[in-house]
Every structure is written in structure tokens, then in C-alpha cells.
């Protein structure tokens, strides 16, 4: 039996069709640029995520879109002028940025700060923590799709900002810390007002606990999402609440108090063993509440006296090097200051918390879904100015 040409062609075509059907459907990955203009990055962070459907295969943070060169700028300014710059690093808790730099300069100059100045400094330090973290507590809700908490956060943060403004005159950029003390004493009646604000902040914490922590959807979205084990957290240099949420009991306020009065207060370092997004939220919520108690204690025990030590009008810092780090709202913030005995610093190296905190994203974002990217970014809580400086 001979095979006609037509039959032969039909056979080939059928075999080819079979082969096409039997080959598995080919899929192609997609590279998604989350940012630099994306609402979840609240700033100009860019996450380059390679996706397989909704799943992230690899993610890489790209930073530097907002680099302002503060380290270099600080070299051409005098010591008192630098605080104006570094206010803008973590713009939500500005006063806390000034503290470690001033402490480093004081260490070099060997100035003894009056006790009242240290106490007020610590009060403002913790107030800026409240102003910073209360916004996170609401923002986490909005990143997960609940729009209401963020309005509560803005409403109650306003009271804290008012208190900061009453002392320093600046809501966002106080520029209040001076080498040797503070610019001014507290205004009249401020202590009583602050006590009222602390009660309001605790009510705010209770409100958010009811609104978010008890919510099944919130738990489903955050529990087990973005788990960072303690060893990974340590090896990536995480600090602040991100580290404590991984179960590492380490807080610079307790373990290395330098110049601030946290060691004279009765307070507790909160940790959570889970290391997931929920734990990070929970730890920050507890820390907010703890900070209100701390401030109340400090208001009770505020010593009398001057708020400024005797320092020369034109400040010349003796030659030397100093590194001072404090537990800022976002994590450990340190300044390595080198002076050659001039009016300004010779070199300033800024160790900001968010830069290290965000570096863990490639590790933690493998295999998560796209919505989890947002959850993880929100729960790691960075301020873009703190990443790019």
C-alpha cells in the first residue's frame, strides 16, 4: 500500500498538532517595578520584583532617588548648623535625629550637660517617637486596605506635634538641640498639657488594638507574612522594633544609654518571638504605649535648674573622633563624627536605621505574593529620608 503525498502531509500535521497540545503551556515571568512612584513606598523607593503570576521570585530594592548628600554637606557647615540638615533625615521624628549628633559633639568637647536639659531632651526624644510611630500604626492599616486607622493616627499625632511645637516652635523640624543643652526651657503649663496628650495617645493605642489587632483579616494578612528569624535579622543589621519583633532583646535605650536618662526610668523592652509582620506591628504598638508611660515618669521627676551649660559663643570642637548611637523611632541611629579642631566637622558618617532595615527585603520577599510585598514594606517601616540621607 502506497502512501499518497496528501496522507503523508496529514500525518505530519496531526503529529505536530499532538506535540503542540502535549507541551505544557509556556508561561513567562514579568518584571514589575514597584516604585519609585508608588503609594506604598511613601517616598521614592523602588522595588524591582520579578513575578511568576502573583508570586514574587526575586525582589531587589533600588535606593538613592532621594539622596541629598548630607554627609558631604555637613563637612562645609559649622557644628550648630548641622542640626538643621540632619533634622530632615527621618522627617517624622526630627528631634530624635539631632540628639545623637549633639551627644557626639558634646563628647568631643567634654561638656557637662545640666540634668534638666538631659531630661527635657529625653522627653522630646520620646515625643518624636510618638509622633513617628503613631503614623506607622495607622499607615499599616491603610496599606492593608483599611482606610480608617490612618485618619485616627493623623488626628492624634496632631496633639503630639502641638506639644513639640509649643516647646520648639517647629512642628516638623524643631532644630532645638544645642551643644551643651537646649535652646529654651519648657513653656508655662506645658507639663499639664502633655499629661493630657499622653492619655489621648494611650486611648489611641487602645482604639487601634480594637480596630486592627482583633481583626481576623488583619491577622490573616500579617501573621506568618515576612518572617525574619533572629539570626537573619542580626546578620542584616536590623535594629529597633524590627529586631525586637524577631525576639532579640536589644534596645540601645536600656543597653547603652549615653547622655539620655532612660536608665533612670522604670520601663520595659517589648519583644515578640514570631518575627512576622504582625509581631512588628504589635511591638511598635506596645512601644508607643510604653513611651507614654516613660514621658509621664519624666514629667513627674523633672529636675530644676538651667537648660544650657557654659559653652563658648563660637563653638570649636577639639580634634578627635566620636561615635554615638541612640535608639531612634526607626531603629539605631548613629553618627561618627571626626573633628580636626575646626568650626565644622571634618567628616560625618551617618548610620541610619532604615537603610539597614530595608536591606533585608531581598531575603524576606522571596516567594511571597504581591500584596505581601506591601505588607512587608509597611511593617518594616522605613522613612525614605532615613534610607537615602
Amino acid at each position, binding site marked *: 500500500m502506497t502512501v499518497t503525498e496528501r496522507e503523508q502531509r496529514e500525518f505530519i500535521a496531526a503529529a505536530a498538532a499532538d506535540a503542540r497540545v502535549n507541551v505544557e503551556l509556556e508561561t513567562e515571568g*514579568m518584571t*514589575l517595578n514597584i516604585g519609585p512612584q*508608588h*503609594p*506604598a513606598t511613601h517616598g521614592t523607593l523602588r522595588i524591582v520584583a520579578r513575578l511568576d503570576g*502573583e508570586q514574587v521570585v526575586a525582589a531587589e530594592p533600588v535606593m538613592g532617588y532621594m539622596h541629598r548628600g548630607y554627609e558631604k554637606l555637613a563637612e562645609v557647615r559649622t557644628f550648630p548648623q548641622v542640626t538643621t540638615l540632619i533634622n530632615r533625615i527621618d522627617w517624622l521624628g526630627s528631634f530624635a535625629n539631632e540628639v545623637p549628633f549633639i551627644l557626639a559633639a558634646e563628647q568631643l568637647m567634654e561638656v557637662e550637660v545640666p540634668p534638666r536639659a538631659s531630661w527635657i531632651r529625653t522627653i522630646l526624644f520620646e515625643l518624636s517617637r510618638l509622633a513617628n510611630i503613631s503614623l506607622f500604626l495607622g499607615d499599616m*492599616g*491603610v*496599606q*492593608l*486596605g*483599611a*482606610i*480608617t486607622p490612618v*485618619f*485616627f493616627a493623623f*488626628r492624634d499625632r496632631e496633639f503630639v506635634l502641638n506639644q513639640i511645637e509649643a516647646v520648639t516652635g517647629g512642628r516638623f523640624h524643631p532644630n532645638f538641640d544645642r551643644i551643651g543643652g537646649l535652646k529654651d526651657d519648657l513653656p508655662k503649663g506645658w507639663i499639664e498639657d502633655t499629661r493630657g496628650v499622653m492619655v489621648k495617645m494611650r486611648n489611641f493605642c487602645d482604639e487601634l488594638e480594637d480596630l*486592627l489587632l482583633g*481583626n481576623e*483579616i*488583619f491577622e*490573616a*494578612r500579617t501573621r506568618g507574612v515576612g518572617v525574619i528569624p533572629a539570626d537573619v535579622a542580626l546578620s542584616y543589621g536590623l535594629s529597633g522594633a524590627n529586631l525586637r519583633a524577631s525576639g532579640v532583646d536589644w534596645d540601645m535605650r536600656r543597653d547603652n544609654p549615653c547622655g539620655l536618662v532612660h536608665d533612670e526610668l522604670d520601663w520595659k523592652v517589648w519583644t515578640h518571638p514570631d518575627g512576622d509582620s504582625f509581631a512588628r506591628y504589635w511591638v511598635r504598638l506596645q512601644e508607643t504605649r510604653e513611651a507614654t508611660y516613660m514621658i509621664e515618669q519624666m514629667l513627674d521627676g523633672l529636675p530644676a535648674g538651667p537648660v544650657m551649660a557654659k559653652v563658648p559663643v563660637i563653638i570649636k570642637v577639639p580634634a578627635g573622633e566620636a561615635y554615638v548611637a541612640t535608639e531612634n523611632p526607626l531603629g539605631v541611629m548613629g553618627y561618627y563624627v571626626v573633628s580636626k579642631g575646626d568650626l565644622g566637622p571634618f567628616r560625618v558618617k551617618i548610620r541610619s536605621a532604615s537603610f539597614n532595615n530595608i536591606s533585608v527585603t531581598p531575603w524576606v520577599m522571596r516567594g511571597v*505574593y*504581591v*500584596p*505581601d*510585598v*506591601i505588607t512587608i514594606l509597611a511593617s518594616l517601616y522605613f522613612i525614605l529620608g532615613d534610607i537615602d540621607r
Partner: protein
Amino acid sequence: MWTLAIELAYWQQTAIKLVVVALVIPTGAIILGYVFLMKMMSFMQSRLGPMEAGPYGTLQLLADGVKFLQKEDVFPRRADRYVFALAPVVVLVSTFLLFVVLPVGPDAVVSGLDAGLFFALAVASLSVIGVLMAGWGSANKYALMGGMRAAGQLIAYELPLVLAAIGVVIQAGTLDLNKIVLAQATGEIFGWGAIGNPYILTQFVGFAIFLVAVQAELTQPPFDMPVAESEIVGGYQVEYTGFRFLFFFMAEFGTAFAFAGIASVLFLGGWYVPGLDPTSGWFNLIGPFVMFIKIMAVSALIFWFRFTFPRLREDQLQKLAWKVLIPLSLLNIVVTGVLKVLV
């Protein structure tokens, strides 16, 4: 039966009906948008909401609408122009068709189909096509993800929606929405018929499932992954501006209005008020107001959820639909069927 005294030609009737439906959608959208999206949400979030445009901010949405109309009609360079332009219209048509069968009185219905419920649920799923078209035609990765999420979600939640309505259909024994209202008006609960039988009392499981599914159909929080503004920045709507975005907005709130209407017809007794004669022609006059009150009540519930809950993740949403809602609604159908035969 009380009927219209004037006999109109077919085309005249059709024209009137078209105008009525075409007016109901923007009106419903504006009412819901103002009352719930602007005012209720603002009060829940301890702020005032719009206060400047008109008394108490009532004209804010009209001002917004005019603003949208003035915007440039932007097409992304690589967009599929026809698909992109057509998508909002398809979505709006689905909303438009929903109102066709919604009864607001014994005769006050645009088109009283025998299979009215079937028709309503069928045209409701038309919007999936529009959303997919928008997601695909925008030539944007975020829009594509939004479109795909929307398609997966709307298909998953179509099923509990239909299954929840079947309980009502079994009890009423009809698919005609007006007859469902009459069945509730003349019904009895275990022999007690003073308030009729609004099916929310016997079909409460169905009502709950229906509301959850409606929430997902409307892509509102906690089921708003297709538009998730903090993740995929608006999803399929991301490239739309001006009046095309306005179409999406109107469709979203118009559909909310329509679904609230269907829910009140199925579960709350529609245009009927207990204690009155359901065959009275006066219901053609007071029916729309009764319906409006019931629609607002159901919408309040829908929007309350919207402003309270965070968003689920896509896989959690699918799990909820397939593992919880569908088995539950099937069980509801079984129980309803057994009771229907026994009682």
C-alpha cells in the same frame, strides 16, 4: 389592577423607560457616593467630609463630575485603543441592564421578565468582560494584574451569589422578582402571617452569603484586590482619566445601588410594607420610596463593611469563596428544600 390611563406606543414606552433607567444610575450613584462615601465615611473617621460645594457639601459629586468631564481624554501610547475606549461602556451597560428588571411597585418595573432574577444575575456578570478589557487594553502591568484579579474574583463570587439566591427561589417558587415580592407579602412563617414573610427571617444564611458575595462583586473592601490602591494603584482603572473614569465610578456605585435593590427585593420584601394590601395600585406610588429606604439600609451595611475592614489577599479570597461560602450556600439550599417539602 390600577394601570396607566394613557396608552402609549411601544417606542414611546421604550423611550420613557430608557430615560428613567438612564437617570436612575447617576442619581443612585450620586446619592450613595454622597451619603456613604463622603459623609458616613468622614464621620466614621472623625472628619467632616466635603462642606463647601452646596449646602453641607451636597453638590460635591456634581462638581467632581463636571471636573471629570473637563479632563483630557488620555490614551496610553501602547493601549489597544478600541478595547480601552469600550471597556467603561461595557461595565456601565451591565449596570444599566440590572435596573431593567428591578421592580419598585406592582406595575412599576421597566420590564417584568418571568426569569427576572436569572436575568439580573446574568447581566451582573457582564461587567467582568468590561473589567478584563480595561485591564488588557491599558497596556499596563498593574492594570493587567488588576484585570486578572477581577476576573478570578468575580467568577469565584458569582457562584455563592447565585446559590444564595436559589434559597429564595425555592421558597417563593418563582424567578419573577415581582412574584417574589408578592410571595413575601402573602407568606407566612410557620402559620403566622402578620408581617408576611420577608425572607431575611427564614433565609438569613442566604442573606449573609448574598451580602458577602455582593461585596466581592462590587470589588469593595475587604474584597477590593482588583483595585487595591496601595498595592496595584487602582488596578484596571489606573490608566483611565476624565469621563471614562467617571463611567467606572458611576458603574461602581450604580451597581451597588442595583445590588442593594435586588437584595431588598429578595430578602426584605421589596416595595411591600406589612399591613397593606399588596395588590393595591397605590404601591406603584409609594413603592419607589419604600424601595429607596430599604436600598439605603442595605447600602449602609455594604458601605459600613467597606470602611471598616482591611483587604484580604487574593488566595485567601478564593479560599473563602470555594471552601466556605459555596459549601455553606449548598447546605442552605438543602435545608431550604427539605423544609419546603416538610412544612
